[in-house]
């Protein structure tokens, strides 16, 4: 202000580079942008051939490292000395220096920051045009001044008054380099002495040191304290929250402040690369490289920004992500656009075929799903065409045009997006356009380079978050140097985090690990100055410095030496790590140890947010010895606390409760509970499932929770699919023979029959392969061989059994209970003792009859089993196995009802026919007589009663290896309680099981 002798000063804040640009205005050169710099580095690596960079020449990490080094070298006053030191490092150093020289040659027509300062200094010497415009220059807390900048300031100082202010903290390790720069500037300006104003002493007036269990708790406690500050009248803009490391603190702090609904502004901008548009476009550009893998497509769709404010229709249609996931999984899509399209089309056709025998409601559902599958196939067709990139070696502008086209079509800018996202979206367009300039140094490019260049361009562009002056300042520790605050919070002063460990430059460090560019020293001094500056910012106010005792992933962390140093300042004596436990016990007012989350909650005076308030209330209630279940929050139905407490207590008890599968209260009112078993025709499987494990029944039949598996995880055909396949082959084969008038009791299978079976099997194999359900081709080869061998063995057995039984196959895949299927028999009804009737539907694999005229008339119901006979061993003792195998009895009943009066004098047997070597071609049968039907009625009644009474207790069965018998192959094993056996023991009696 001293410069404004009268009235007001016309002050314009600028960075020195902007001043230089203004002074050098009119130069013929153009600026070296980030895009051009990256292109120059790639070009500088091209003709190397020295074997040093060749194997990593494509790596963006190498480009970044070289870029950082080259920029530093350009700032050097005497680069030759440094280059010599780097060259002495050996092959890597020599190659680095050679690349730098090529880079210089490539970029000589452009100016970078040091060159701009030089140009400005020359311009300042030539002309005074700018002097009147500038008037005077105040250089305020410059972070760094290189030789070119000092020279520029020297030239400017000859014609305008210059005042420079440097921050001094009164300690050599923080001030040395700054003092050197100040002295150099003073010399350039011909100033004899440097005036020392004042230094900021340590510690500030009030300092609190805090230790928290982990970074999350550290941040939460910071927000609580900050909320107290705000309540006590401290302005938001007078508070700074600073951290040493962006990871993990940046996100934690922003999320915690958002949760507390406290406005904040970022001290440094957020990269455009983290925005919706940039992330989504980069993912879209990689779809071809990722071969349209199912995960890649779903990932991209999941991250696609909304287009609520876009008028143009979505080229992908309005299909929800869940539809993409469901249909692609059902269609067994793995990767490749062609596979997507073929398998989705096949799925659609299958769904349409299957809908024919369904009731109208089910048919409509399947037809709609087929439509969805076709729509996805069309979307993939379009996407595949649009995302096809220009060939590698095409011009930059072709790649840019391609990406712009995709951007416009699939991720159009939407002004309804949040403000930051909308701004980031516009910056994405600017970044895309800027890539064209790379052609000046690199005429052509590749998809890989183009994507990397775009990623780098959007990572380099930052946009401010929040409005300056309108919220809490959030940012890295060094971001607030020179700004005054009433409250400053510094997080993360843990060993290894802050100060950070100085890295060694692999391209430039010398043999003794010294950096010839002095970056390690600068980093160390910079971090020290940043901390001192942050504490000084709170001078007169209050600073809180904290560290976490673990990283949140169970790894212990320790206070950094600067934290201990501050503790020493507060304690008035040196403090070491080993002193802290004792100090915590002494609990001086300047030291706080948050022992745990609960301790943090118990200490809070102002909750950070609503959840915090509720937590505090619950913790206080609990500490006072009162029953948590009586807490007002536990009484509120919309909050989970009451239910969680009730669930925990219920499960611990001996009572059979709703949390154990007792849905008795719902049984009378919920149709969805009982519909599966008494709401029209049900299946034998439903009864068997309830008899095995009622909880599984609840999940599958009532809640319809589907076990999902990713197609790529199915390495071999699953047992269900294998069974369907074998049934299909046998059905086709026997129907053909039946149509030819064959299959009498003594009919002999010829070599031609075996050949025909082979042919039919291969047809069925091919059809299944096309659906992608056969797993890994090599495993499938073996499975096919085994299935064929089994089928031929079965034919031989079948002939033998037919002759021995004197029966002839008559019906195949005979449906019953499907009212819309013209060949279906009526449902198999089972009357219960209480007058109810339960109806079943299903399909009988095969029915053999004795030849006409043979007395007694006999029928054999056959159910093929393609697996092992494990689990059927006790069938002889109990033909229904306690309800776990009711199929045979039900099918026998279906036969009787289907034949009507013709079944009056029919002797009916039913058998499981194991049709594989694994099942040893065993036949396990039952006689379907009145006694069995009576027993069937009893079993069905128990199941129906269980369901209608809402009994769904998990029944694990006996222990079996590391699991339980009923859980070994259960898809829902993981969602079941781990203590299921204990729950069963305690509660099954009350559940009536």
């Amino acid at each position, binding site marked *: 202000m001293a410069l404004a002798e009268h009235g007001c000063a016309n002050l314009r804040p600028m960075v020195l580079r902007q001043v230089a640009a203004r002074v050098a205005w009119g130069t013929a050169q153009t600026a070296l942008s980030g895009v051009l710099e990256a292109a120059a580095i790639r070009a500088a690596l091209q003709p190397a051939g020295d074997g040093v960079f060749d194997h990593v020449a494509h790596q963006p990490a190498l480009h970044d*490292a070289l870029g950082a080094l080259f920029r530093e070298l350009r700032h050097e006053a005497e680069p030759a000395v440094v280059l010599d030191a780097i060259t002495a490092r050996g092959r890597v150093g020599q190659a680095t220096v050679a690349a730098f020289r090529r880079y210089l040659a490539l970029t000589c027509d452009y100016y970078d920051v040091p060159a701009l300062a030089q140009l400005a200094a020359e311009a300042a010497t030539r002309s005074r045009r700018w002097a009147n415009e500038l008037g005077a220059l105040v250089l305020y807390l410059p972070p760094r001044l290189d030789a070119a900048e000092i020279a520029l300031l020297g030239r400017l100082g000859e014609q305008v008054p210059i005042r420079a202010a440097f921050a001094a903290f009164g300690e050599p390790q923080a001030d040395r380099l700054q003092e050197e720069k100040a002295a150099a500037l003073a010399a350039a300006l011909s100033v004899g002495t440097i005036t020392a104003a004042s230094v900021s002493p340590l510690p500030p007036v009030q300092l609190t040191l805090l230790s928290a269990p982990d970074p999350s708790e550290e941040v939460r406690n910071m927000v609580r304290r900050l909320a107290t500050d705000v309540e006590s009248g401290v302005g938001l803009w007078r508070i700074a929250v600073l951290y040493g490391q962006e990871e993990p603190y940046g996100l934690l702090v922003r999320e915690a402040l958002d949760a507390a609904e406290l406005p904040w502004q970022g001290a440094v901008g957020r990269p455009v690369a983290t925005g919706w548009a940039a992330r989504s476009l980069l993912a879209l550009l990689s779809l071809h490289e990722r071969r349209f893998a199912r995960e890649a497509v779903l990932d991209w769709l999941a991250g696609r920004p909304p287009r609520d404010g876009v008028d143009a229709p979505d080229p992908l249609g309005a299909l929800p992500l869940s539809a993409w996931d469901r249909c692609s999984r059902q269609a067994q899509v793995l990767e490749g656009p062609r596979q997507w399209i073929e398998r989705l089309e096949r799925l659609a056709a299958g769904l349409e075929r299957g809908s024919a025998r369904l009731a109208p409601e089910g048919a409509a559902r399947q037809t709609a799903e087929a439509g969805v599958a076709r729509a996805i196939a069309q979307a993939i067709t379009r996407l595949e065409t649009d995302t096809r990139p220009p060939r590698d070696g095409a011009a930059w502008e072709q790649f840019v045009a391609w990406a712009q086209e995709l951007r416009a079509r699939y991720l159009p800018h939407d002004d309804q997006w949040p403000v930051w996202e909308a701004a980031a979206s516009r910056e994405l367009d600017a970044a895309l356009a800027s890539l064209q300039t790379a052609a000046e140094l690199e005429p052509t490019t590749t998809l890989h380079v183009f994507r990397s260049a775009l990623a780098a361009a959007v990572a380099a562009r930052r946009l401010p978050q929040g409005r300056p002056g309108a919220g809490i300042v959030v940012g890295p520790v060094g971001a607030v140097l020179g700004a005054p605050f009433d409250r400053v919070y510094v997080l993360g002063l843990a060993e*290894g985090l802050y100060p950070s460990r100085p890295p*060694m430059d*692999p391209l430039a*460090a010398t043999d003794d690990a010294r950096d010839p560019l002095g970056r390690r020293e600068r980093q160390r001094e910079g971090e020290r100055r940043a901390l001192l500056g942050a504490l000084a910012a709170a001078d007169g106010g209050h600073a809180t410095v904290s560290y976490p005792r673990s990283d949140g992933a169970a790894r212990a962390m320790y206070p950094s030496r600067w934290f201990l140093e501050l503790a020493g300042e507060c304690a008035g004596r040196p403090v070491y790590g080993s002193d802290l436990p004792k100090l915590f016990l002494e609990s001086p007012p300047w030291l706080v140890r948050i022992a745990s989350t609960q301790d943090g909650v118990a200490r809070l005076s102002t909750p950070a947010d609503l959840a915090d308030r509720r937590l505090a209330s619950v913790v206080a209630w609990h500490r006072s010895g009162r029953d948590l279940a009586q807490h007002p929050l536990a009484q509120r139905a919309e909050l989970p606390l009451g239910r969680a407490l009730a669930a925990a207590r219920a499960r611990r008890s001996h009572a059979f409760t709703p949390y154990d599968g007792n849905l008795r209260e719902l049984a009378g009112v919920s149709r969805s509970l009982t519909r599966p078993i008494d709401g029209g025709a049900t299946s034998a499987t439903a009864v068997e499932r309830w008899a095995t494990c009622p909880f599984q029944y609840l999940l599958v039949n009532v809640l319809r929770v589907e076990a999902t598996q990713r197609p790529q995880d199915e390495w071999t055909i699953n047992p269900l699919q294998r069974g369907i396949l074998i049934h299909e082959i046998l059905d086709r084969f026997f129907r053909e023979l039946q149509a030819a008038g064959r299959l009498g009791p003594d009919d002999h299978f010829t070599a031609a029959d075996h050949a025909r079976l082979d042919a039919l099997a291969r047809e069925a194999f091919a059809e299944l392969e096309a659906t992608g359900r056969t797993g890994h081709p*090599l495993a499938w080869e073996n499975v096919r061989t085994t299935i064929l*061998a089994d089928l031929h*063995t079965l034919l031989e057995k079948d002939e033998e059994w037919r002759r021995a039984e004197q029966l002839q196959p008559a019906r195949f895949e005979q449906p019953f209970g499907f009212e819309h299927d013209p060949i279906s028999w009526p449902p198999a009804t089972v009357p219960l003792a209480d007058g109810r009737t339960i109806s079943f539907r299903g399909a009988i694999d095969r029915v053999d009859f004795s030849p006409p005229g043979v007395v007694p008339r006999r029928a054999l119901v056959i159910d093929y089993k393609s697996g092992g006979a494990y689990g059927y061993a006790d069938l002889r003792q109990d033909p229904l196995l306690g309800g776990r195998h009711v199929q045979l009895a039900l099918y026998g009943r279906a036969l009787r009802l289907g034949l009507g009066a013709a079944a009056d004098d029919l002797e009916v047997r039913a058998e499981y026919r194991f049709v594989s070597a694994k099942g*040893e071609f065993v036949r396990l049968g039952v006689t379907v007589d009145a006694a069995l039907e009576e027993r069937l009625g009893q079993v069905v009644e128990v199941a129906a009663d269980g369901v209608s009474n809402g009994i769904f207790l998990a029944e694990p069965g006996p222990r079996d290896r590391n699991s339980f018998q009923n859980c070994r192959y259960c898809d829902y094993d993981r969602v079941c309680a781990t203590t299921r056996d204990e729950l069963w023991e305690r509660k099954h009696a009350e559940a009536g099981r």
Partner: protein
Amino acid sequence: MIADQATRERLLTALDETFFVEAGAGTGKTTTIVGRIRNLVACGRVTMERLAAITFTEAAAAELRDRVREELERAATDPTRPAEEQARCLQAVEEIDLAAIQTVHSFAGGLLRSYPLEAGLPPSFAMLDEIERAVQFEDRWREWFWSAGLRAPARELLRRAFLLGLTQEHLRQLAEALEQQYDLLRPDTTWPAPATEPAGPIAQALGRHLAELTAWTAYARDGTDDPLAQSVLRAQPLADRLSTAADDEAALVALQDLLALRPGNSSIPRWGKLPDGRSACTAVKKTLKQAQDEARRVVDGHRSSVFAAVLVLLRAFTLASAAARRAEGVATFHDLLTWARDLLRDHVDVRRRAQVRYQALFVDEFQDTDPLQAEIAFYLAADPVAALPADWRDIPLVPGKLFVVGDPKQSIYRFRRADIAVYDGLLRRLQHAQQQLVQNFRSVRPVIDWVNHHFQAHMVAQESVQPPYVPLAASGSRSRTARAAACTAWAACSTRPRRTWPRSRRIASPSSPGGWPAATGR
């Protein structure tokens, strides 16, 4: 008087000697390390950036760094020290961040970041945490399984492996096991495979035997209701398949089905006698068992052969995966150690520079060391003039550069590749450097007595398996109560069975899947 006072003083002051210190729990090993570092710094033999102290955990590293700083700060203000020593200590305090006091993984990562291009890496590589590693492994594995696995030479081999009962999950587990120890793999590593015999003739012979058993079922008194007779009859389709097996693979499939056969139970009284007087029941059982034994022998032979070949396939996959990670610039924790070892072993120039850079090396918790860690330490401490011997354990060391502390009693991290055999082997080779800290400062005499009594009995020296037990020395008085407690504890434990303590890990021998023979690398 401290029992090992002279040893302690020597460890602190004999700065030109290499030491391999065996220090039990509570014997003050950290204090010894800190004191030696202080002395090295004070006398100007080492600066912070030339110091490396490797700890087992990050917590231990942080604690050690704090202890070193504290000790140096005290030394810097210790009026009994000469001014130049104080100045060196003060300088070291300011530069403590330059010291490599860290875990072996951090240290190896630092080495690789210092010489990435020599290690074949880009200048800044990314670390994969365990979850990321597992995800990436799954992706690579799936890619290999569904593409490379379908091409020659993998195709035919995998098909045969599946035929012999190997599953995708078995393969995946084997690949993962190899990845966890791939530092031991070379591009030419192979596993011995036994010669196999043609399965066809054996299957045919066994098929005939099974078929002949049908006639013997007539001796079952319950006829076809007898469970053993039922088994024989049910096995006849299998007998046909065995007899008519058209090729080796069909024969192997049938032989495996024979192995799966579970004959029903019966008893001698329920069967009659054969014409030659033998019990028909016993004869049937014996024939079935012999058939199954023979089938197992043949199938196991084929499985061993295929298994060895599959391991070679997976070796290639594993090494290619590591190479791909290197090219992409991402590293797992195991990569850090392997690549750092390779860098120091294979690049003379880098090794020399690293040897110059690190003038003092401390390794703590050496009993739980990954063998790669020991190898890295030896390369760094190697005499730069001498040529590297074929076996890194024979490397001549620069006197005084290496200081190793360990306690075989506390070797508990075998699951993290800790190998007590490495410890034992190095202990034997560096016997001249061996020192023991036995004075315990943490526990009372009864506890020490109890520990000595039991562990001495169980930890019996066995080469490459268990180093000798070094008893701890107690300090302080021995109260009657404590003595009584110790006696009770002895009585309670002295009858427990003896067990073997940490064993050496096998070399590149991933567990074979259930029912499959083991393979040993060479």
